[in-house]
């Protein structure tokens, strides 16, 4: 079966696109699917460090496009997961080195190589973003429950619809359940009301994400991490499973509830 090509994008930078791509890739690959992820952020690559593969890079996406190497030579295999590959972005080139038709051709060649192609889009709505969505079968918009991120997500969703890439689905990343309970953060319902698109996952804020980035080991591998669990659930939904959404706001122990009641948290 040819691969499904999924692009993650957001409009705003820093909402966790790269982390989401890395975690979904790890979760899909550890459940037995062959995954190739592509870093679409030419000139500002980061997916390699998040996955812990920065020391293995020999060739990058521009080398493939310009014919300096074969596709398979630019596919770096993960250290632990044998079904996970990364095609890194070029670091010393700018986004004009790649065109939409280059991306469509690359993705076409990858379709017979794996089950999932995950593309990490750069922030913004310019050329790099257009390239990243050009070959996608499906687009996931990543946002945070915060005014600027939601506003930018709405712009991107509108553009995706206009380009015939919709309907997009949403990952609501970095939800802080305590703030939501105290009505100091937009709730998942608020965000869905505003953006009016399908939800594919809610990822709670979790310190383990930073620890994972430090080590180059995405939290989806960590069975105890809440964010890791959320990413694994999203991966299962991508595979077509029906997985109930975890109600993060109603979680928490006795002390947290008491503090909530007295307004201290």
């Amino acid at each position, binding site marked *: 079966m040819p691969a499904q090509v999924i692009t993650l994008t957001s409009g705003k930078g820093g909402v966790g696109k790269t982390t989401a791509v890395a975690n979904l890739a790890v979760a899909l690959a550890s459940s037995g699917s062959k995954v190739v992820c592509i870093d679409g952020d030419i000139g500002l690559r980061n997916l390699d460090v998040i996955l812990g593969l920065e020391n293995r890079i020999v060739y990058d996406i521009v080398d493939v496009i310009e014919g300096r190497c074969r596709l398979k030579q630019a596919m770096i295999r993960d250290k632990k997961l044998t079904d996970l590959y990364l095609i890194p972005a070029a670091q010393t080139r700018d986004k004009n080195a790649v065109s939409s038709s280059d991306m469509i051709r690359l993705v076409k060649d990858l379709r017979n190589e794996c089950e999932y192609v995950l593309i990490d889009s750069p922030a913004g709505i310019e050329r790099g973003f257009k390239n990243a969505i050009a070959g996608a079968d499906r687009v996931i918009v990543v946002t945070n429950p915060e005014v600027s991120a939601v506003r930018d997500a*709405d712009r991107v969703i509108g553009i995706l619809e206009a380009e015939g890439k919709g309907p997009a689905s949403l990952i609501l990343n970095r939800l802080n359940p305590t703030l939501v309970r105290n009505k100091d953060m*937009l709730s998942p319902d608020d965000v869905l009301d505003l953006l009016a698109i399908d939800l594919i996952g809610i990822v709670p804020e979790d310190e383990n994400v930073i620890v994972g980035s430090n080590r180059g080991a995405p939290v989806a591998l960590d069975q105890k991490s809440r964010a890791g669990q959320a990413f694994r659930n999203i991966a299962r939904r991508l595979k077509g499973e029906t997985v109930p959404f975890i109600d993060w706001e109603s979680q928490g122990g006795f002390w947290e509830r008491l503090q909530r009641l007295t307004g201290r948290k």
Partner: protein
Amino acid sequence: MSFLDRLFGRKTSADSAKERLQLVLIHDRTDLTPAELDSLRDDLIATISRHVSIDAHGVQIDVEHDGRSQRLIADIPLKAVTRRRTRKTK
């Protein structure tokens, strides 16, 4: 949000965020600024007034959204002048 804020029923910051975003998104999606909406309103009043007498102060124009699609809603009260006049002549 503090306990006292809640006790006195102050609007929560999440509510402010949602309300502000609702307005911003309408304008982002339609490219229609509040100033343009006002000028559209004036044009509508002028055009309709040529055919029927309306209560210009009661005219309300809003952009409503249903999912991701937007809808321009105009509420234009008519003045019941003609009916009164006919009664008087009888």
